[in-house]
């Protein structure tokens, strides 16, 4: 077959793709989206099936039987969880406007630039081998068709004569035309999705066509083919899992790797999440996609076995059986269709993968650098979109050229599948950070960085590095002797782990350390505020989407008048008014006052329109007046930041108000005390003035009599003067006592403090009073202990106290039959002075009262006693100032004993 026909067919095919893409974009603009349904969504997911599947599976099956299947069983096993996990990823990504898998990780962990960078690096390094095998597949299929069944030699020819290089360049141009014509803020390319879906259909149809031809054209059905195949022992061994080169351990790891690959490969994430038009499509896709995988794998083993039967002795590379079988049977047209199928499988992968990588490179690698350097930011801020497109175009070319270089240097030595698995293992490093990020709030940026970094390093050391050794780019001895000659650092048996295949080995170690580092470091680091916010937004995405409408965070806005107009037109004016009134009532918003209809009103109106014209139509009609106004990340963070600040303020305010309350309480208490004091003072003054008025009144009255009555008898005059003197003395005493009281109160430490021997002090006080007692014929007794007792204090004041107590005793002793005793005893560390009398005694309820101000116990028989009522109060004040106490022990009619305790001076 001539090269011209093949190139012509390829160009025509690419042209067809452009037509489809163009048509889809036209439809999207007209609001009749072609891709907004689960079938196209599922077909676009089938970009998972690349040239690896198309050519490589057969090659793998020819060497390991059913060993090609785990790559497709993994996604099938995971499919039931899509509605839980993938849907959540989509909702998060839509609300956060996430554009790539690196963006997702970066966004989750506090919009970390470093994580975005690391994610991009892992993705680029991980995917380049994968892209290289697509180049290889296209190049080889071209060779086989033109050279009649033999793959060409790409290793020996110089690069400028190599068809693979021109394929790479053509694909770069193709991708640039497809993915970077204009910049979409949501990175949605409906045309691209339509083209990918078409390619998925074509590759399935082509592969099934080859399969049916092989089974029913070359053989008489499956039983015939298998019967013939199983007669050969080498084929029979392939189907015996006990002898096959794949064991349960490898099988399990391939399942696991493919589970992560189907969602986290950059191109899979791009079609499954970024290009997704509705999260509701996930449900149907979760059984449609496994169905697609089932169909495309149906004929893999038959084709592989037929190839092994037809080309014994390894004359044809099993990776090319799909082309070689129809070609050798003379079915050139079928071979061309098969090649076109392979071409579509490869191109779809390359286009989406390279676009996804270019988005990552521009958004997570180049843009942060651009934005960080101020001058560049100023210079290019005006045409940033144009620059972004430029960066993406350059990224696309670079990625494809590097992929070609990888193919040229390494890729040729390995089968398609073994190289593809290198990429799968790289991408699996994303899994812990993403799964943890979506379900575990405690995961931190540092943890994610540590996990990714460790996983990436171990992956690089155990998979791509040895391939460089084996192809002679690095020293071969590294594999046999280990890094730096250390036997536990051999790439294929790290830490001495042997007996497992390279991929399981690498996946096990890299993921083990990845998960351990992610979890371990996360637990020992603290997330910052933004990380906490993002973690909450990611993990609790459903909480932020109450109401259940699609992408609530995409706020739709419209003019109130437009919404009213629509409702009028489709519901009639009466019903429309009712609906709007209901809305006003429910939300309490006055429609006349709303400048624009917010998302809530738009959704409300749409729901009511759905009732009249169906949900789908309502959505389209509402779209004609409502424009999507997605909340930007920055805006969202601003709001969150503001909320946080407000919360902090309010907390501070709460604190302040608590403090104020406490202060108020203190002030209130102080005020109460002051009021009480004031009352006391007032009482005191009232009492003092009352006490003063009584003697003054009598003085005044007697003085007047003396003044008015000149002829008063001498003895009467003497009596009156005696009373006047007595009353004046009483006033003087009262005033002295009041002054004393004030002195005691105001003087904090107004007493002299000297060591006093009590015995002489008491004798002196006693002697002063004995004259008075003798006059009243009171029997006296002075009982002082012989032990000298000393206290610290003011001798005058203490004398005053004792005299006061004695004079009280004299006052209340019955004249003629009185008995007063003054005693001094030692009680522990205290001196006890007792003044005992045999007077009328004090009732128990009065015993505390007598120590109060101006309390005088009246005696029914003798009336009001003389005295101010301050004596005992002052005495107690003095005693307390000396650190002692004054109390009374008494029963009515049995006399009273005043007990004065004073602390002794320690020697």
């Amino acid at each position, binding site marked *: 077959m001539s090269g011209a026909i093949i190139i012509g067919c390829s160009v025509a095919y690419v042209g067809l793709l452009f037509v489809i893409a163009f048509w889809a974009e036209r439809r999207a603009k007209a609001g009749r989206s072609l891709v907004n349904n689960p079938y196209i969504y599922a077909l676009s997911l089938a970009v998972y099936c690349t040239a690896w599947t198309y050519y490589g599976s057969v090659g793998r099956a020819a060497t390991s039987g059913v060993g090609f299947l785990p790559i497709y069983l993994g996604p*099938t*096993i995971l499919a039931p969880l899509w509605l839980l996990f993938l849907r959540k990823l989509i909702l998060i990504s839509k609300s956060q406007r996430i554009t790539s898998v690196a963006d997702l990780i970066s966004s989750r962990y506090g919009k970390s630039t470093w994580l975005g960078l690391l994610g991009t690096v892992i993705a680029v390094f991980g995917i380049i081998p994968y892209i290289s095998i697509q180049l290889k597949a296209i190049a080889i299929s071209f060779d086989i068709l033109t050279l009649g069944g033999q793959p060409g030699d790409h290793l020996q020819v110089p690069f400028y004569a190599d068809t693979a290089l021109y394929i790479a360049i053509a694909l770069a141009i193709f991708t640039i035309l497809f993915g970077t014509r204009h910049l979409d803020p949501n990175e949605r390319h409906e045309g691209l999705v339509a083209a990918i879906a078409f390619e998925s259909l074509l590759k399935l149809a082509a592969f099934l066509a080859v399969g049916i031809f092989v089974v029913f054209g070359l053989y008489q059905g*499956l039983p015939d083919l*298998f019967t013939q195949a199983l007669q050969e022992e080498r084929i029979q061994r392939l*189907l015996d*899992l006990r002898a096959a080169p794949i*064991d349960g351990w490898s099988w399990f790891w391939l399942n696991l790797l493919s589970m992560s690959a189907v969602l986290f490969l950059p191109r899979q994430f791009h079609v499954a999440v970024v290009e997704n038009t509705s999260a509701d499509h996930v*449900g149907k896709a979760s*059984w449609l996609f496994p169905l697609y995988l089932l169909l495309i794998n149906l004929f893999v*083993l038959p084709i592989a076995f037929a190839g092994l039967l037809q080309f014994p002795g390894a004359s044809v590379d099993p990776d090319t059986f799909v082309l070689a079988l129809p070609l050798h049977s003379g079915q050139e047209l079928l071979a061309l269709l098969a090649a076109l199928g392979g071409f579509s499988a490869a191109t779809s992968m390359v286009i989406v993968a390279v676009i996804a990588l270019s988005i990552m490179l521009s958004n997570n690698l180049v843009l942060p650098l651009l934005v960080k350097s101020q001058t560049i930011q100023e210079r290019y801020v005006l045409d940033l979109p144009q620059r972004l497109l430029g960066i993406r175009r350059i990224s696309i070319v670079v990625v494809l050229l590097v992929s070609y270089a990888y193919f040229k240097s390494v890729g040729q030595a390995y089968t398609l599948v073994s190289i593809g698995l290198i990429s799968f293992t790289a991408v699996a490093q994303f899994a812990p950070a993403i799964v943890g990020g979506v379900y575990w709030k405690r995961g931190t940026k540092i943890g994610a960085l540590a996990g990714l970094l460790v996983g990436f390093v171990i992956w690089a050391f155990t998979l791509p590095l040895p391939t460089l050794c084996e192809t002679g780019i690095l020293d071969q001895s590294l594999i046999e002797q280990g890094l730096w000659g250390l036997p536990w650092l051999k790439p294929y048996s790290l830490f001495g782990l042997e007996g497992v295949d390279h991929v399981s080995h690498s996946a096990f170690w890299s993921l083990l350390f990845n998960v351990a580092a992610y979890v371990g470091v996360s637990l020992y680091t603290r997330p910052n505020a933004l990380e906490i916010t993002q973690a909450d937004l990611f993990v609790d995405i459903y909480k932020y989407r109450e109401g259940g409408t699609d992408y609530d965070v995409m706020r739709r806005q419209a003019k109130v008048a437009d919404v009213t107009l629509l409702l009028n037109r489709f519901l009639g004016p009466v019903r429309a008014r009712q609906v709007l009134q209901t809305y006003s009532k429910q939300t309490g918003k006055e429609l006349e006052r709303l400048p624009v209809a917010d998302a809530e009103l738009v959704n409300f109106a749409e729901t009511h329109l759905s009732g009249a014209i169906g949900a789908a139509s309502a959505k389209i009609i509402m779209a004609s007046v409502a424009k999507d106004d997605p909340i930007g990340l920055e805006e969202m963070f601003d709001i969150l930041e503001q909320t946080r600040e407000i919360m902090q303020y309010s907390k501070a305010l709460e604190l302040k108000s608590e403090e104020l309350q406490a202060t108020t309480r203190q002030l209130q208490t102080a005020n109460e005390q002051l009021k009480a004091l004031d009352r006391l003072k007032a009482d005191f003054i009232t009492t003092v003035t009352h006490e003063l008025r009584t003697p003054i009144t009598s003085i005044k009255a007697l003085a007047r009599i003396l003044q008015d009555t000149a002829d008063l008898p001498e003895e009467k005059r003497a009596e009156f003067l005696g009373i006047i003197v007595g009353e004046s003395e009483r006033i003087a005493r009262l005033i002295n006592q009041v002054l004393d009281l004030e002195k005691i109160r105001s003087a904090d430490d107004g007493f002299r403090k000297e060591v006093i021997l009590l015995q002489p002090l008491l004798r002196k006080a006693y002697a002063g009073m004995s004259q008075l007692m003798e006059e009243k014929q009171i029997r006296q007794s002075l009982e002082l202990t012989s032990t000298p007792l000393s206290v610290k204090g003011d001798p005058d004041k203490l004398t005053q106290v004792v005299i006061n107590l004695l004079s009280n005793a004299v006052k209340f002793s019955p004249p003629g039959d009185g008995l007063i005793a003054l005693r001094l005893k030692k009680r522990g560390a205290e001196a006890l002075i007792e003044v005992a009398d045999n007077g009328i005694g004090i009732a128990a309820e009065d015993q505390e009262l007598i120590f109060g101000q101006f309390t005088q116990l009246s005696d029914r028989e003798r009336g009001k006693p003389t005295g101010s009522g301050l004596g005992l109060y002052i005495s107690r004040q003095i005693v307390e100032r000396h650190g002692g106490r004054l109390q009374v022990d008494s029963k009515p009619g049995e006399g009273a004993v005043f007990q004065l305790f004073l602390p002794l001076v320690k020697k």
Partner: protein
Amino acid sequence: MSYRNLPMTNKDRYAKLVGLFFLALLLFNFPLLALFGKGGQWLGIPSVLWYLFSTWVVLILLINFALRHKNSNRKN
């Protein structure tokens, strides 16, 4: 809203789907797989292929059923 009973059925469905995931993980892995990988045939086709592809079909149907439940519920 008329979706009052939806959360409960949603939970049911999620439980079913998680169950299907573990079932698939079990069926599509060793050692169950090894039971059919002893090289036998049925109707001329290797038993391991019968096992793998029929399990696959059943699984697709089960996912479909688990999801269909939801749709009928929503319409009511």
